[in-house]
């Protein structure tokens, strides 16, 4: 097996730093006078200008209108962005509603899932809307779960980080508008990958994360709808009082540069044929492979695979040794080694879910890389299947105590 260059196939965990971002940040490191953007002096003003420019660029990529930069709250991460929205809306709901109710889905990112415990401990009710076998959110049940006087928020992942399945956000947006319920979309994996028609959807809260678009990790974004309620999680004067703490200038500048380069159409045109090629090769060369989320609308770069009789983690390690970076489940839950809740919600067995790996492509992958990848993958999958079938059983093991 070739072990020359690393091939990075884990963009959904963190996209590779964009060359332009790297260049700008290197220049920024050498900047003679970087200061706290809140300072009055000239160095502070320089920092402030960088901050404002980056904010406008981010706003432009989301709202297609840079004058909307006041509608953006910058946080430390996508997790903070999600949890700020959820806490903000649901805390307020305890004042206005008797027994507030939150609808979210069974395939959310952990940062959203983790808020269930908090909300239920406060006395709130959570409904997890299920998905079908292809990973698509069940719209009917979402609509049916709405309790007019109690439902305070609908939170939904726009593009699933593990499967790439795109949620029917237009329909969901219609439903929430009809019922006058605030809508929170987690757009972390949608940003840059699909066209965000903000004005058509106009979600009340939309969240993003910088390291998914080729900027450094450390910046989360909340895009606020017009006239929505918002309460900070961290108090302070920054971000117009909506998020305290000195701004992460490097991260935000990086996010601004990356946001300015986003081109979903080009992304789709460039990567979609590569994934198609990869899928065809897999089907041809490896037996017992299943594409999770197949048949649903998926973003073009994500491929979630289960190989019969293969443990995902062993596969990730073996691929790493062969020079390929992929994930099993989502990066956050690795180490805990629970089967992916997303795949379990799609009806996979624990075994099938544990067998899953996620391949997420980026611009830089070539067809030749894909050829080599599938070649190596086939060898490794066969090896793992052989190892499992001829596990060296000691004599003592054959007996049960």
């Amino acid at each position, binding site marked *: *097996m070739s072990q020359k260059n690393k091939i990075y196939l884990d963009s959904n965990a963190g996209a590779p730093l964009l060359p332009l971002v790297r260049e700008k940040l290197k220049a920024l490191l050498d900047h003679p006078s970087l200061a706290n953007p809140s300072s009055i002096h000239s160095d502070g003003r320089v920092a402030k200008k960088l901050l404002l420019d980056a904010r406008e660029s981010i706003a432009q990529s989301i709202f297609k209108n840079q004058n909307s930069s006041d509608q953006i709250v910058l946080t430390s991460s996508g997790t903070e962005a999600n949890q700020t929205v959820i806490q903000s809306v649901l805390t307020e709901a305890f004042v206005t509603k008797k027994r507030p109710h939150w609808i979210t889905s069974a395939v959310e990112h952990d940062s959203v899932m983790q808020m269930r415990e908090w909300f239920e401990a406060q006395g709130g009710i959570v409904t997890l809307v299920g998905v079908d076998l292809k990973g698509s959110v069940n719209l009917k049940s979402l609509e049916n779960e709405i309790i007019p006087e109690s439902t305070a928020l609908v939170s939904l992942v726009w593009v699933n980080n593990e499967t790439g399945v795109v949620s029917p956000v237009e329909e969901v947006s219609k439903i929430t508008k009809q019922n006058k319920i605030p809508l929170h979309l987690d757009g972390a994996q949608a940003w840059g990958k699909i066209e965000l028609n903000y004005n058509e959807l106009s979600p009340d809260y939309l969240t993003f994360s910088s390291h998914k678009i080729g900027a450094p990790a450390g910046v989360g974004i909340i895009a606020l709808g017009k006239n929505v309620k918002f309460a900070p999680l961290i108090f302070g004067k920054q971000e117009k009082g909506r998020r305290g703490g000195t701004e992460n200038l490097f991260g935000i500048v990086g996010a601004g540069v990356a946001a300015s380069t986003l081109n979903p159409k080009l992304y789709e045109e460039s990567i979609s044929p590569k994934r198609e090629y990869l899928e065809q090769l897999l089907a041809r060369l490896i037996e017992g492979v299943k594409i999770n989320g197949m048949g649903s609308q998926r973003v073009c770069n994500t491929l979630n695979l289960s190989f019969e009789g293969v*443990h995902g*983690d*062993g*596969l990730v*390690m*073996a691929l*790493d*040794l062969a020079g390929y970076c992929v994930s099993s489940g989502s990066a956050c839950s690795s*180490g*805990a*080694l629970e089967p992916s809740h997303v795949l379990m919600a799609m009806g996979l067995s624990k075994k099938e879910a544990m067998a899953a790996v996620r391949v997420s492509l980026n611009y830089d992958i070539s067809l030749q890389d894909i050829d080599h990848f599938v070649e190596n993958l086939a060898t*490794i999958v066969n*090896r*793992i299947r*052989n*190892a*499992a079938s001829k*596990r*060296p*059983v*000691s*004599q*003592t*093991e054959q*007996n049960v*105590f």
Partner: protein
Amino acid sequence: MLSAVDPSKVKVLVAMSGGVDSSVTAALLKTQGYNVIGVHMQLSDHTDQNFEEMGGRCCSIVDSNDARKVCDRLSIPYYVINAEDEFKEAVIDYFVHEYLQSRTPNPCAECNTKIKFNYLFQKAEELGCDAVATGHYAQIVYDHKTKLSKLTKAVDPQKDQTYFLFGLTESAVSRTFLPLGGLSKMAVRKLAEEYQLVNANKEDSMEICFIGKAGYADFIDKNVSEKLRPSGVIQTLDGATIGEHQGLHHFTIGQRKGLNLKPQEQHDYFVLGFDRKQNVVLVGPEEYLFKRTLFATHINWINPVDQLKPFKCKAKIRSRHEEAVCLVTCFENKTVQVEFDIPQRAITPGQAIVFYQNNEVLGGGYIEKTLDS
């Protein structure tokens, strides 16, 4: 035979606990030019752990981080493999079950056989590795005549761990490196310092890794319904009740402490056995503890032995036992009868019996019962 091959072509998976022994193992193999991969087996869930309480213990998150640092230092890949389910089933459940049968289990031997070697070998094959290495103090010798690999004792008799390794097969032994077998613990620590490993001065793990400070009986009390471990009485062999007990699992054969007898009786009584039907601990004078003959099951021979005729060797019936001369007669179903030349004190069902011929480990199994009347 692995040692005849160009090291750089041999991919070795090193089981790394985070302790000094396995770290030096990795360092030694790396220096010898092998293609080394470090793997830490996570055997229990870290999320519920009290950090203070568990820090420094085997399998804790601290250990995993230490192993990671060592692998970074050696520039080798490092992975954490989750073996919680396997460990629970093969080791913890076995351990509890044995105590509830009034037997005294050997979880470390079970863990070595099923987790540290069997499961690890499966992972090694998955990763395309040719061999496995651990920091056990034992040696592997290749016999050119028979073309078989033998497991032999470590040079440092104080550190020898072969008693816990009797469950290995020849096929496993022939693909295993045990580079510490020829070293003393002091030399290993010295090497760790020379290699500048973070854990050079880390304390050795002593107790059973999943048992906290409160002890094994407490572990069983916490994990098993009271109905399965009822309290009862302590009786002498002639049926006189002389005390009470809080469950048979608190006792092991040969035990004298913790019987809580009336003060004047204490001196004379040792645990001799159990009457499980009546839920009674049987006690008596020490001389009754000495037995000559036992019956053992689940026997594994590392290299084939001639099972058609009885043979003489030495046997060890617990980790701190001085091995004694015996005659072994093999039966079907991996069972043996063992007759010691001299009666042995406190032969305990559930404990491992391991057979030696000079320094070589022939194999071993678990003591089922004594056969003397």
